[in-house]
C-alpha cells in the first residue's frame, strides 16, 4: 500500500536515532573499534569512551558513574534488577510488591519468580492509573525485599508518585526499583532525591540507538548477576561492550535531558491541541490515563463502538503510525492489561488508540490527524452494529 507521507505518532514504541547521536557513534564502528577490555592503548581509548558515556548517563539521573551498568535494553535491565535482587535477598524474604500495570518485562519476571517460590503483590490502580500509597504501605510485610513500580506507564502515560514511593521504601528499608524506560527524557529524574535504588532505561526511547540501555544500581546494593561470563562492567555484566551503542546512549541521554523543560513544553502544547481537538470533534470518546500527571507526548483515548486494529489499519493507509490496546492487534484474547486495570470494560478497551508525540511531530501533523481521524472513526462507527444499536436506542 502506498503512503503519501509518514506521520509518526508512536514515539513511545521507539524513536529515530538523532543524526548527532549517529555521528558520535560512527567512529566507534570503523576506526576506534578496539575492545574496551583490552590492555593496549587502542583498546583503552575505547574504554575511555565507555567511561565518558557512563558519566553522561549518571549525570542525567543524578547518580554516580560507578552506579551505572550498560545492558542491552529495558527488558534486560528489568530482568536483572528484579531477578538479581530476588536471588540476592531471598534469605531475608520472598515477597515482592509491584503493580498491575507494569510492562511485561516486569510482570513476566514476577510470574517467573512466583513459580520459583516468591510471592508477589500486584497493586491495583485507580481509574487514572495511579497507585494508592496507603495500599502500598499496607502491602509491605517483614518478608518484603523489593518494590518495583514503573515511573511512567507506556500505554496511558500516567506518572507515579515516585519520590513518595521511594520515601516509603527507604523508611521501611526495602529496595526500590523503577522501570523508567518511558520516563527518561520526558520527566526530570534524580535517584538521590527520589530514593531510587535501581532504575532501568533504554536508549531507543529518547533518540538513542536500539539495543542499548542501562541499569542504575545504588552503591552498596547487593545483587546477583544475570549475564555470566567475562569480567566486563566491573564483573557485574558479562559480554563485550557494545561500544558504539554505549557512546550513542551517552550522547542521546545528554541531549534528551539538557533542555528537558523547554522540550516538554513544546511537545505538551502540541499534545494538548491534538487531544482537545479529538475530544471536541469526536463524540463518545474517553481519555485514558491521568489528565495532568501524564507523559507530555502521550494521548490514549477510547472511541466507543469501534475496534482498535481496524482503526490502526485505516490510519496506516494515510501514513499515520499509532498503537492500540485492542487484543486483535496482538493476537491475544484480552485487551491491554493496563486498560483493564484502570477499569475499562473489554469493549471500550478494544477501541483504544495511543498517539505518542515527540521530536518528529509537527503542527502540520496535528492538523492532518485532526482532519482525518474524525472521518475514520465515523466511517468505522457507521459499519458497527454497536453504534447502530446505540443510535436506535436514542431514537426510541
Amino acid at each position: 500500500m502506498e503512503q503519501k507521507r509518514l506521520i509518526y505518532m508512536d514515539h513511545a514504541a521507539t524513536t529515530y536515532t538523532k543524526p548527532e547521536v549517529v555521528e558520535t557513534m560512527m567512529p566507534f564502528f570503523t576506526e576506534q573499534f578496539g575492545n574496551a577490555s583490552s590492555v593496549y592503548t587502542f583498546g583503552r581509548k575505547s574504554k575511555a569512551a565507555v567511561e565518558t558515556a557512563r558519566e553522561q548517563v549518571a549525570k542525567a539521573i543524578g547518580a554516580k558513574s560507578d552506579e551505572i551498568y550498560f545492558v542491552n535494553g529495558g527488558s534486560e535491565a528489568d530482568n536483572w534488577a528484579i531477578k538479581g535482587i530476588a536471588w540476592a535477598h531471598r534469605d531475608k524474604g520472598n515477597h515482592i510488591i509491584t503493580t498491575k500495570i507494569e510492562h511485561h518485562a516486569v510482570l513476566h519476571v514476577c510470574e517467573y519468580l512466583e513459580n520459583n517460590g516468591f510471592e508477589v503483590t500486584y497493586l491495583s490502580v485507580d481509574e487514572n492509573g495511579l497507585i494508592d500509597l496507603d495500599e502500598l504501605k499496607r502491602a509491605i510485610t517483614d518478608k518484603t525485599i523489593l518494590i518495583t513500580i514503573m515511573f511512567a506507564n507506556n500505554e496511558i502515560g500516567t506518572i507515579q508518585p515516585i519520590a513518595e514511593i521511594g520515601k516509603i521504601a527507604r523508611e521501611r528499608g526495602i529496595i526500590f526499583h523503577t522501570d523508567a524506560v518511558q520516563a527518561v527524557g520526558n520527566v526530570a529524574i534524580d535517584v538521590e532525591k527520589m530514593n531510587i535504588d535501581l532504575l532501568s532505561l533504554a536508549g531507543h526511547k529518547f533518540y538513542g540507538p536500539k539495543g542499548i540501555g542501562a541499569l542504575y544500581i545504588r552503591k552498596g546494593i547487593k545483587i546477583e548477576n544475570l549475564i555470566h561470563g567475562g569480567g566486563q562492567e566491573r564483573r557485574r555484566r558479562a559480554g563485550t561492550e557494545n561500544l558504539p551503542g554505549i557512546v550513542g546512549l551517552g550522547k542521546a541521554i545528554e541531549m534528551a535531558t539538557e533542555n528537558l523543560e523547554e522540550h516538554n513544553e513544546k511537545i505538551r502544547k502540541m499534545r494538548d491541541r491534538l487531544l482537545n481537538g479529538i475530544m471536541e470533534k469526536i463524540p463518545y470518546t474517553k481519555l485514558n490515563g491521568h489528565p495532568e500527571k501524564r507523559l507530555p507526548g502521550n494521548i490514549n483515548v477510547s472511541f466507543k463502538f469501534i475496534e482498535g486494529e481496524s482503526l490502526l489499519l485505516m490510519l496506516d493507509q494515510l501514513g499515520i503510525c499509532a498503537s492500540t490496546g485492542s487484543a486483535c492487534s496482538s493476537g491475544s484474547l484480552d485487551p491491554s492489561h493496563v486498560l483493564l486495570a484502570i477499569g475499562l470494560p473489554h469493549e471500550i478497551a478494544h477501541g483504544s488508540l495511543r498517539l505518542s508525540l515527540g521530536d518528529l511531530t509537527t503542527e502540520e501533523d496535528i492538523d492532518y490527524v485532526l482532519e482525518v481521524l474524525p472521518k475514520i472513526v465515523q466511517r468505522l462507527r457507521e459499519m458497527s452494529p454497536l453504534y447502530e444499536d446505540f443510535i436506535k436506542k436514542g431514537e426510541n
Partner: protein
Amino acid sequence: MYSDKVMDHFMNPRNVGEIVDANGVGEVGNAKCGDIMKIYLEVEDNIIKDVKFKTFGCGAAIASSSMATELIKGKTLEEAWNLTNKAVAEALDGLPPVKMHCSVLAEGAIHKAINDYRIRMGLEPWEDNITDLDDHHHHNNE
C-alpha cells in the same frame, strides 16, 4: 500481515449497511472479544436478493464480512448455507492463523440469518454445527 485482497475488502467493504425490511437477520460474536458481525438478508423465492452487513471488529472481521456477503449474494439459501469459513478465507487469499476465527464468524452469522428467515417463514431451522460463536476465541475452529 494481510493479503491485498483482505486490505481491498477492508478499505472498500462491499454490502456494508442495513436492510431496513430484511426478512432474515443474524448476529454473532460479542463486544468483549472485540468482534460482532450482523448480517441482513432479503430473501425472495429462496434466493438471496440482497445482503448487507455491519461489523464491529478488526480488519479481518470486516474483510470477511464483505467477502462472505459477496459470495452469497444471488445464491439460493442452500448454497449460502454451504459456504464454509475456509471458502471465505480462500477467497480473501488467506487470513493469518490468529484471524481465522473471523471467517468462522462470517459463516456463523450467515447461518443465523438464514435460520432467522426460516423461523419467520414458519419453517424448521436447519441444524447448525457451528456452536458457541459468542465464545469463539476459546475454540479452535480452524
